[in-house]
C-alpha cells in the first residue's frame, strides 16, 4: 500500500520527534505537527505542516503519533483514540499502571490500534537475539544481562523529575525490561536499586533491576544516565542450556575514526546504520499495520506490561524489597468482563 493519501498527526516536537518526523515523511505520509512549543522549528527542519491545536489536528488526520513527554502520553493517546484514530505512542505507553491499563481497554473497546514505540525491538542485534531464542538455538534460558548507558537527558527538565518521567527505569531501562520479557518471557518478581548523584546542573542517575521470569530465568538490567560526554552504548549477554549470545555496541563498531576534528561525543540515542534505521523500520511496521498489514512485533499489552514492570521496580526502590507480580490479567478477558457488567 502507499501512504501518500494518509495523514498522520505528530503530537510533540521534542527530541524523538526529530527522529519520527523525517521517517514519516519518507514513508510518504502527510504529517501535521501539533506541539505546545517547537512545532514551527521542527517543521522548518524536516517538513510537514504545523497545526495550532490538538482538536484541529484530530480533525485532519487519520493516525496519531504521540511523541510528547511521558506524563502526557495517556491524555493525548486517550483523546486520539476517542476521536477514532489509530495511535502510535512513544514509550512508555503511560506513566502509571492504571493509565496504561485504561488505554489497553479503551483501544480494545473502540476497536482502534494502539502501538507502543519500543524501538529496541527493531534494532537488528536484538532481533537476532529474539530470533535465536525463539528458534531454540540457546535452549532453556538461564541468565540474561542487559546494559544501556548514555548521557543524562538535561535538554528539558521533566526527565529529571521521577514523578513525571519515572526516572531512568521508566524512561531508559524500560527498553531492556521490555526486551528481557520479549526474549525470556513473563516476569514474576522485580527488585531494583537506584542512585542519583552529581549536581542539579549536571546530574547522573543509575539503576540495577533484577527480574525473575516465570520460566525461572533471571535477568539483570543496568542503566546509566551519565555525564554529558558519555557515548550511548548498549550490551547484552544471554546464556541458555544450549548456548550463549552476547553483544556490545562498542565492540561491534564498523567505522572507527581518529580524526583531528573529532566528532561530537555524548549520546541520548544510539548510533544506527542509516541503511537499516530501526526508527524507520518501526514506523513503517506500525503504519503498514494501520493500512491493513500484519500486526507489529510489539502490542499494546506489551507496552502496558513494560510499564507495569517498570513501576514494580520503582515500588521496589520505595519499599527496599523485591516486588512479587500477580500474573497479568489478560487484557481482552478483562475488557470482556467489563462489557458483561
Amino acid at each position, binding site marked *: 500500500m502507499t501512504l501518500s493519501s494518509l495523514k498522520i498527526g505528530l503530537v510533540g516536537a521534542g527530541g524523538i520527534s526529530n527522529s519520527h518526523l523525517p521517517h514519516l515523511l519518507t514513508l510518504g505520509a502527510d504529517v501535521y505537527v501539533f506541539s505546545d512549543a517547537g512545532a514551527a522549528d521542527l517543521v522548518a527542519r524536516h517538513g510537514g505542516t504545523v497545526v495550532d491545536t490538538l482538536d484541529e489536528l484530530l480533525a485532519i488526520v487519520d493516525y496519531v503519533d504521540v511523541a510528547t513527554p511521558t506524563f502526557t502520553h495517556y491524555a493525548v493517546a486517550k483523546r486520539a483514540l476517542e476521536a477514532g484514530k489509530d495511535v502510535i505512542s512513544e514509550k512508555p505507553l503511560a506513566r502509571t499502571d492504571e493509565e496504561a491499563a485504561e488505554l489497553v481497554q479503551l483501544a480494545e473497546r473502540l476497536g482502534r490500534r494502539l502501538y507502543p514505540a519500543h524501538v529496541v525491538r527493531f534494532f537488528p542485534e536484538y532481533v537476532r537475539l529474539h530470533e535465536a531464542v525463539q528458534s531454540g538455538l540457546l535452549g*532453556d*534460558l*538461564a*541468565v540474561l*544481562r542487559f*546494559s544501556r*548507558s548514555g548521557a543524562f537527558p538535561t535538554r528539558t527538565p521533566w526527565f529529571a523529575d521521577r514523578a513525571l518521567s519515572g526516572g531512568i527505569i521508566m524512561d531508559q531501562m524500560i527498553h531492556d525490561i521490555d526486551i528481557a520479557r520479549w526474549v525470556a518471557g513473563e516476569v514474576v*518478581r522485580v*527488585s*531494583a*536499586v*537506584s*542512585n*542519583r*548523584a*552529581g549536581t542539579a546542573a*549536571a546530574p*547522573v*542517575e*543509575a*539503576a*540495577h533491576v*533484577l*527480574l*525473575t521470569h516465570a520460566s*525461572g*530465568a*533471571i*535477568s*539483570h538490567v*543496568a542503566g*546509566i544516565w*551519565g*555525564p554529558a*560526554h*558519555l557515548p550511548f552504548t548498549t550490551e547484552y*549477554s544471554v*546464556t*541458555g*542450556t544450549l*548456548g*550463549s549470545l552476547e553483544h556490545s555496541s562498542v565492540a561491534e563498531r564498523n567505522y572507527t575514526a581518529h580524526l583531528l576534528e573529532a566528532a561530537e561525543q555524548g549520546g541520548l540515542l544510539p548510533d544506527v546504520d542509516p541503511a537499516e534505521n530501526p526508527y524507520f523500520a518501526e514506523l513503517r511496521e506500525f503504519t503498514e499495520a494501520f493500512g491493513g498489514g500484519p500486526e507489529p512485533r510489539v502490542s499494546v499489552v506489551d507496552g502496558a506490561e513494560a510499564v507495569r514492570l517498570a513501576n514494580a521496580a520503582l515500588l521496589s526502590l520505595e519499599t*527496599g*524489597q*523485591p516486588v*512479587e507480580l500477580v500474573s497479568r490479567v489478560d487484557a481482552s478477558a478483562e475488557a470482556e468482563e467489563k462489557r458483561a457488567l
Partner: protein
Amino acid sequence: MNTASRPLKVAVMSFAHTHARGYVELLLQNRSVSVLTSDPGIHSPAETRGRTLADELGVDYVDTYHELLAWQPDAVIVTSENAHHREHVELAARAGAHILCEKPLATTLADGEAMLAATQAAGVILMVAFPVRFASTFLHLKADYDAGALGDVFSVRGSNNGKLPSAREWFTDPALSGGGALVDHVVHIADLLEALMHAAPLSVTAVANQKLYADRAKAETAGLVSISYDNGVIAAIDCSWSRAETAPTWGGVRLSVAGTRGTVDVDFFGPRVHGLDSASGVPLELPYGPDFDAALLGTFLEAVGTGVQPQPDGAVGLRTLKIVLAAQESVATGRTVQIVEG
C-alpha cells in the same frame, strides 16, 4: 622467624583447591623459599592429589599436617575445601605461621570470625587470596579513582563468569564448598569494590537458578546480585557459571565503573589472540598477560618477611563473605537482606 641467612619456609596445606598447583609452581621458582606440602586423606582416584601430585610437581611432601607444621613453617598457604578453611587456619595460627587463605574466607560467619580471632590471638598475618586486585588494570583504575578522574562513582557492574568447576568434585558439593556460583564468584568482584572504594555494603538482593549444568550441579549455577553501599554506590554482580564446558577459555572477570566524570570498563582477563581451528571451525582463543597469582603471592611473601599485615586481610574476607551469605539468604527468602556491621 626467618632471617636473610635461610630461605623462607612455606607450607601448603591441602591440594583440594586447584590453585594449590599454581602456588607450588610459583614457590618452586623462588630461590629464597623452601616448600613443603601435605594433602592427607583418601582422594578420589579421578583426581590427582596427595603424594602423586607432589611427585608430579617435584615438591617435598609429608603425609600429615602434624608433620607439616612440625617443620615450623614461616608461612602456610591454605588451599583446602572452603568448609575446612577454619580448621586449617586455626592449626596454622597455633603453629605461629603467617597465613594466606584461599577465597572465600569461610562458608559461615562463625567460621570466618573464629579465623580472625585465632590469627589475631596468635599475632600472625591472615591474607585472603583475591588475586584480581593485583592486576595492573585494577591498579590503573584505582589510580584514576583516587585521583578523582571518575568524579563521584555512583554505579558499578561486575561479572565473574566461568565454567562449572570440574577438576575437583568438592567445588559443587555445598557441604564442602558452601554453595554454588554465589560462593565461588561473588567475592572476587566484592573484593575489587572493597579495594576501590573502602565502602561498607548495606543491603543485598540476589536471584539464582540451577538451569545450567543442571545434571551435575548440587547448588545454584547462575546468580545475579545487587548491592547498596554506604557511600551511595549501587553495584550488580553476575557470578554465574555460564561459560559452556566446551568454551575455549575458562571465563573472565569484568568491571564497569560509572562516575560523574566518566566511566571505566575493565576486562581483567580480556587480552587474547583470536583464531580458528581449521579442522573443526572452533574458535581459538589464546589469552595472555601477567599472572595475578604471582603478584598476590609476592605480596604475601614480602609481608611474611616484614611482619606487616598486607591487604586483602581477614576483615576483607569477612566482609565479602557477609555479602555472599546475605545473597544466599536473599535467594532463599526472596527478600532484600540488610548487612549488619560488626
